[in-house]
């Protein structure tokens, strides 16, 4: 299995990532799933101006690697790409891409969703929103943690 993890201030091009993964997996893959998380222009009804994402270089990449290895142990995956941006972002900007190729659809869907649930709760990032109401540090929600717990056992 091929794993590609990148943390960067740069935006990404889903079309290019998709095409590259497709070429790598060739006729082995029956299913590709991509998730992109975007900056919403509001948090509940509180308009968001800026999202700032911080990481801990080294540890962050390792935390993602561990999450991907856990997915790979659960499902037969051919190729996984996780791109996560850091730095300053505005509404409608792309934050994260998780892109999974597998021979079959259920594995591709499950692994992609699993990876996102774990990234929300286990990857070493911090989010800071500048909103109309002021500056807020964001934590993973109860719903995020429940979704993560849904994968265990």
């Amino acid at each position, binding site marked *: 299995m091929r794993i590609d993890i990148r943390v960067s201030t740069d935006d990404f091009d889903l079309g290019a990532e998709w095409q590259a993964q497709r070429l790598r997996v060739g006729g082995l893959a029956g299913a590709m799933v991509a998730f992109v*998380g975007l900056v919403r222009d509001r948090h509940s009804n509180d308009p968001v101006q800026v999202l700032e994402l*911080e990481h*801990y270089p*080294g*540890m962050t990449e*390792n935390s993602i690697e561990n999450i991907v290895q856990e997915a790979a142990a659960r499902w037969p995956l051919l190729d996984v790409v996780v791109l*996560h941006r850091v730095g300053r972002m505005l509404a409608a900007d792309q*934050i*994260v891409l998780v892109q999974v190729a597998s021979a079959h659809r259920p594995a591709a869907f499950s692994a992609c969703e699993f990876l*996102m649930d774990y*990234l*929300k*709760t*286990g*990857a*070493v*990032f*911090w*989010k*800071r929103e500048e909103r109309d109401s002021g500056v807020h*540090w*964001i*934590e*993973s929600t109860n719903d*995020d943690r429940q979704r993560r717990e849904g994968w265990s056992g």
Partner: protein
Amino acid sequence: MQVRVLFLARLRELTGLRELKLDMDDGSSSALRRALEHRFSPELVAALFSENTRLACNQSLWDGHKPFAAGDEIAFLPPVTGG
């Protein structure tokens, strides 16, 4: 012994510091706490050691037991969220 201490995200804002060199009496977490008490207010130290904070040692989550060693990079991590 001397260690490097990192404060991430909200804890960096709280301390006003990204990084700090710290002299500790020994490798225990209580020595770490004492050394920080020399530097910061009791309220701030309490915030650093709150139950929400996790510690990393050399970029791996600290297990709460392993003694720290001279030159270690100790990081205070507030609750994370990615994605």
